[in-house]
């Protein structure tokens, strides 16, 4: 029944930043380093990610969110 699923995936820098470093379950607790600290340590990455926000502002958010638009 299930048609053949084509797996297409490269673990690029883009996907690392977008998924592995940005998403996934975050828990605190008895950890050596809390993930919040890791966030602060991104340094170079942090610069990149803050430029994301800048870009969204510059572009005037052409695509805000269809969910919002749909109300």
């Amino acid at each position, binding site marked *: 029944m299930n048609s053949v699923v084509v797996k297409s995936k490269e673990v690029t820098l883009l996907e690392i930043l977008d998924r592995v470093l940005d*998403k996934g*379950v*975050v828990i605190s607790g008895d950890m050596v380093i809390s993930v919040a600290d890791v966030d602060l340590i991104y340094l170079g990455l942090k610069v990149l990610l803050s*430029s994301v926000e800048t870009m969204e502002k510059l572009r005037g958010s052409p695509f805000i969110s269809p969910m919002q638009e749909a109300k």
Partner: protein
Amino acid sequence: MTRQQLVYLYCVADREPELKETEGLADDLYFVCNNGLYAVASKVEEEEFGQEGLKRNMADFEWVKAKASAHERIIDLVMADTDVIPFKFGTLFNTNDSLKAMLEQYGEEFKAILRKLAHKQEWGLKIYCNSEKLKTSFSNDEAEILKIENEIKSSSVGKSYFLKKKKDELIEKTLNERINECGQESFELLKELSFEAHINRLLPREVTEREDDMVLNSAFLVDKDEVGDFQNMVDTLKMHYEGKGFLIDCTGPWPPYNFCGLSSEKGQNE
């Protein structure tokens, strides 16, 4: 043995995972079990992942790239046989006991998330737009733009300056409309075929390493039986939009990074 080791957590599953060869991605994987949940972990050196080491290493782009991609590949291996909750890069514990305590504390929430994720996959859809190409593709068939162009030809210098400005504004407006249409239509149609869908922030060229601009960054949680239909829809969208200045990039299956938020952190994420 004097060197301190830490416990690095990759993911949590509700079935005993088959731990295969990690192809040198990490030291031996093992799992810690508590009350029907399995946390897949490996030992890492305190020197590398401890507070000081991590601070130093996170500034080293090559290190981050290598370790984060190992993180992803390891979860991929586990995901081949069972549903998983992927954890964020750099989730560390002092001991197996503290990892076990965390499993105990969040056990019910993890089980609820795994029930939701059962038999589903995360797929990613990113759309890029080459504005110049898109402008060319619509400038020749937009009646209003063509009309202004004709007017410009038969106008005085002063008036044609004004008309050119008007034409440029119209082109920008149409450009934004077309980008919105493409993003919105693609997202809505794929959302129909998904269990859940998210729109993520757009990433700049420094991150995408591309010449064109990202105009949609989205993730979908798709039932495994629907993946074929989902991919057919992506192909339909590609046929419609590619060649007109858009590029549609669909990737997967990913560990469900975008669909495993704990209810307690929901407020922060939304």
